[in-house]
């Protein structure tokens, strides 16, 4: 794999704060490569993030970066996008950040179909606070706040997004960064609310407690379980059990909110 564009990294801010084996660096690198390939002007790109491990990525990226409050990244991004519709916004959130405390903003951003690119780094756990269960922790998995395994069912984040009105949804993982990069490019070029769910290993706060092995084991399992949308189309439910379907799960056409608003007041931002 080729070198990352140094222009898009704040190299003086490295090394990052993430634990050994964390997938956040891989996802961040995929995002940087994707932005480079879109050809977007650096000054038009804004990285918005919430609170949590993955949200610290914003500080390492050399754009205008906005590290917001817990769960609220999409609401900040909505204000910025409406004020400056020409900007290209990437919103990095963790699974708890996006789907628990930020759940309301997530479904309403989807409903408006506002042109934001949500990158949800899903490591199935609250990592920064030491391993509490999130709405994306699979049932039965252990966490410090679910020592016997969580009884709660998890959200299917992309079904939630589509049900709420999002027009682009894709799933990738840190074990297949090239594919993840492609998915982020597709999301970036899609007009409307796009969600890319990126599975990412947290060997320290999630893997260890659930006896999933080290980072390499977790990445291997991620890769082995993953199956492409195209191959999954020809398989039945039994065959797909315990598999993760990767790729673009949906891409629909619907009016984008910022454009619709500006058109309604007589301004074409097309």
């Amino acid at each position, binding site marked *: 794999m080729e070198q990352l564009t140094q222009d898009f990294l704040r190299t003086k*801010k490295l090394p990052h704060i993430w634990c050994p084996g964390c997938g956040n660096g891989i996802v961040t690198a995929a995002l940087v490569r994707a932005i480079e390939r879109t050809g977007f002007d*650096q*000054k*038009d790109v*804004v990285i*918005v993030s919430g609170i949590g491990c993955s949200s610290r990525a*914003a*500080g390492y990226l*050399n*754009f*205008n*970066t*906005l*590290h*917001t*409050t817990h769960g*609220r990244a999409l*609401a*900040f*991004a*909505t*204000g*910025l*996008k*409406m*004020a*400056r519709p*020409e*900007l290209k916004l990437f919103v990095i959130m963790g699974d708890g950040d996006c789907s628990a405390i930020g759940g*309301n*903003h997530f479904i*309403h951003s989807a409903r408006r179909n506002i042109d934001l690119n949500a990158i949800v780094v899903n490591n199935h756990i609250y990592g920064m606070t030491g391993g509490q269960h999130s709405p994306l922790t699979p049932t039965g998995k252990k966490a410090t706040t679910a020592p016997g395994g969580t009884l709660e069912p998890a959200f299917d984040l992309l079904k939630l997004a589509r049900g709420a009105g999002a027009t682009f949804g894709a799933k990738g993982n840190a074990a297949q960064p090239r594919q993840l990069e492609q998915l982020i490019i597709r999301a970036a070029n899609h007009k409307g609310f796009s969600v890319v769910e990126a599975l990412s290993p947290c060997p320290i706060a999630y893997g260890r407690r659930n006896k999933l092995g080290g980072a390499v084991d977790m990445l291997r399992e991620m890769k082995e379980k993953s199956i492409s949308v195209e191959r999954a189309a020809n398989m039945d439910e039994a065959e797909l059990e315990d598999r993760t379907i990767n790729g673009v799960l949906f891409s629909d056409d619907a009016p984008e909110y910022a454009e619709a*608003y500006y058109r*309604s*007041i007589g*301004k074409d931002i097309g």
Partner: protein
Amino acid sequence: MPETKPVLMQGNEACAAGAINAGVRFYAGYPITPSTEVAEQMAARLPEIGGVFIQMEDEIASMAAVIGASIGGMRTLTATSGPGFSLKQENLGYAIMAEIPCVVVNVQRMGPSTGVPTAPAQGDVMQARWGTHGDHPIIVFCPASVYESYYLTIAAVNLSQKLRQPIIVLLDEVIGHMREKVLIPEGKLMVERSSDKDVPSDYKPYDEKGIAPLVPFGFGHYYHVTGLFHDQYGFPTGDPPQVERALDRIHEKLEKYRDEIVLTNYIGHKEPRVAVVAYGCTVRSARAVVKKAYWQNRMPVGLLSLQTVWPFPAEEIEALAKKVDVIIVPEMNMGQLVGEVERYARGEAKVVPLNRYDGEMISPDQISEEVGRWL
């Protein structure tokens, strides 16, 4: 001053009109009584002038959207009432920390909790000061008339931009819904920020030397904005000396511009024995009493009305306490600002609270009776 024309309007409408005059072009909000007219005015007028109105999914999101739009370079405002003001505290703290200008209007209603949504109260004075966590500076204006609602909103927008400091306009249900005459200027009262141009290549959004202009996102100055303690470029730091210096700096900017921030007005006898200290709608009852007692009967009474309640007008209270025997503090709450008055009276004058918390205004008769008791 530009030419003016008299218009009959409501306090909430005046707030919206003042905001637009001062250049506000972005409003995000959530419906709540008794502040809804501010949102309705903005929804009607902003699209006509190329601005953005958005009704968000909740109060938290509206505060966040306002901050996001400010970072994009727009002048912004949001309005709410008690329960919504509670929800805004999280991101209000963020805006203070990240020094993002914005104006938050709170049209106070009777609390706690859902309380009496349509009844007036002044119960959010301490929440406006201390509602968000941590030691933070805050500016709170408290209009006592529709006219003040208009002009203090304009002052709030301009000062917020100048100081990169969120400002609260603390209205109450009485002023918000009352209709009276306002002199609306023909021209704009928007103060341009002079420092937007000629940004140095080594732009420091949090320059230690003073208040750096906020260069909006999207112009090639790549900086970081965070609610974490940060260095001059916006990057997180936990270094104790830097943390302390950063906290000092955001407080010092209010001290430095105190003369522009702290607004009070005294009417009445030059050598008063009894003074009333009031803010918001209570000023109206107090003024009626002082007008009658002093202007008609030459009694030694006066009224110090506070257009700014935070930062607290400590010097003004200290000076007043040296002149009078008694300071009466009428408030439509169980006694909030009276504690501050007592603190800065420093024992020089007796400080008497006068409280009403049944959802009704304090009447001139109540104040008159209390004044009479001490004359």
